[in-house]
């Protein structure tokens, strides 16, 4: 399999007063195309920081990160924005939707930035909203959707532009059990159906249970990396 994400010697240092905090320390990691992988570990272990570095939301202090053949660490802010737009979908911990846009408009957001024709945008938005089970709710604004529905809109938005990678940061953290289960099932199913690579930072055991690859972090380092041969659960 080809590595779609490649981290080499990645370190992220934060300065807190006179002290240097190693959020991520010398991480070497390859994620293969089509993986459904989790990054787990206790709070402060560096999983969210590593995810933000891979997603080009932040820059490492040292080390190199390649995403789908492009070296993220070399890119300007504008080029990084383009890379995120074309290759990476994000699902965040909180329901990160544009509050003044409807569900459909939120899903169309990246497609509009990619200058896709209107008919194509609308068709794709409806298609992915249907995939996440939100048919009939296209015109609702986030304020009129439940937490689970909002997170499903976020997943639909992440999928809309057919990215190579979806990075999700604690996507079930603010959901109740039923909604969390439904979202995990949905992401797992979408991963298998579309072949998109999922890298999910989580400490939710239910999510980890669905992963085909389980990476654990402790104190900014990768402490375990387990591949599951057979589809779990």
């Amino acid at each position, binding site marked *: 399999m080809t590595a779609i994400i490649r981290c080499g010697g990645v370190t992220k240092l934060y300065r807190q007063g006179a002290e240097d905090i190693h959020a991520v320390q010398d991480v070497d990691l390859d994620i293969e195309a089509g993986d459904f992988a989790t990054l787990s570990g206790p709070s402060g272990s560096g999983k969210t920081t590593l995810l933000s570095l891979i997603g080009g*939301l932040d820059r490492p202090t040292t080390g190199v990160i390649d995403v789908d053949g492009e070296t993220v660490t070399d890119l300007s802010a*504008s080029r990084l*924005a383009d890379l995120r737009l074309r290759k990476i979908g994000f699902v965040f911990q909180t329901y*990160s939707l*544009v*509050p003044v846009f409807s569900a459909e408009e939120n899903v169309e957001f990246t497609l509009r930035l990619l200058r896709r024709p209107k008919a194509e945008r609308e068709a794709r938005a409806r298609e992915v909203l249907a995939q996440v089970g939100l048919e009939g709710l296209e015109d609702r604004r986030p304020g009129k959707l439940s937490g689970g529905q909002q997170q499903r809109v976020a997943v639909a*938005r992440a999928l809309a532009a057919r990215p190579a990678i979806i990075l999700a940061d604690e996507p079930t953290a603010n959901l109740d059990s039923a909604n969390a289960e439904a979202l995990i099932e949905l992401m797992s199913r979408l991963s298998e159906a579309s072949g998109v690579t999922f890298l999910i930072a989580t400490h939710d055991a239910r999510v980890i249970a669905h992963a085909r690859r389980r990476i654990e972090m402790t104190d900014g380092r990768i402490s375990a990396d387990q591949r599951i041969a057979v589809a779990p659960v």
Partner: protein
Amino acid sequence: MNAILGLLGPLAWRNLWRNPRRTLFTLAVVVVGVWSILLFDVAIKAVAENGKQQSLRLLTGEGQIHAAGYLDDPNIDHRMPAPTGRLGAVLTGPAVLAWAPRVRVPAVIESEYRTRAVTFLGVAPGAEAKVSDLPGQILAGRYLRAPGDDGLVIGADMARRLKTRLGKRVILMTQGADGRLAEAGFTVVGLFGNVRPAQDEFVFTGLARAQALLGLGGDLSEISFDAANRRDPAPATRALAEAAPNLEVDTWMSLSPLAFTIESLSSAYVAVWLTIMFVLMAIGIVNTQLMAVFERRREFGLIQALGLRPAQIVLLVTLESGLLMGVGVALGVMAGYATVLPLGGHLDMGPFAGAMERYGFGGVLRPTLDLGDAAAVGVIVWSLGLVAALWPAASAARASPILAMSEA
């Protein structure tokens, strides 16, 4: 660019109404600001135009022609022949709306009781009425009827000072063309008023009568003219100067420097007021936008994480300000017209009219809101508003996309 505007335009508009109270407050600041700038502009220009017209429509006209040296020493030696040839053709051509020939010399007037220094004018009444409002300011008696009219029209104030009145005889003495004293008796046939400084200075008789008294033949002291293009008398002035290279052709700007200064300063006053109002508006806009940007930092991080470039964030916030300012400017201009149009271009200053007349102004202002002025104020305020919005816009663009990862 259109695709991005198609996305960011509706987003910017909807963002404005996320906090309607704040948006309406900012909108009110812009509307009141634009409205007050326009009203100030209208008022200042009406006063300046009033002063200018009072000055120009008395005797100055929009321009004058004299013999060389007349303006420095306005005596009978500095005279010129009646216009013929090229000068006559330009005066009667399309560049000139109207013109009036005059004899104008210093003189002394004497009644039974008093003697006063005056400016003695011989005028052609028909032509004069086209370049001067003075023939319409007769308070008692009549104005002159023809160039040969040998009556005398004097100011009401002067009549009081001379202790004379309508129908009484006065003696006028001046220097004739031959250098000798020229004097003649005149009957006061009319008293003019409402033009305070002039009431005490000028006396009028028919042009032919004055020329005969002074022994001028057909010669003149001055020609007053109005250009066909009132906004720009320069082309007419140039044509006249080219037609009469030995004469001096001047515009009202140099003939009546006070009126010109008032008019020039009116633009400066408006600019000062515009600056004051704009600074107040900018403080309001920048403050509210900075507040809005601060509240939405995580959202700016989110849309950057989704692929919006920093420059597009600047565009989004600038669009929000542009829309807000645009609506505010449009409403402010409408409010300006709603205030000025009902006046119908006529504002009687009522109790202040007397005071205004004492300072050389008329008692009635003619306020009009020029579409070009309104558009210029609107464009300036809107453009400056956009510039002011660059600060909060730059602040929004600095929001790191990593903020999207943080909890709300």
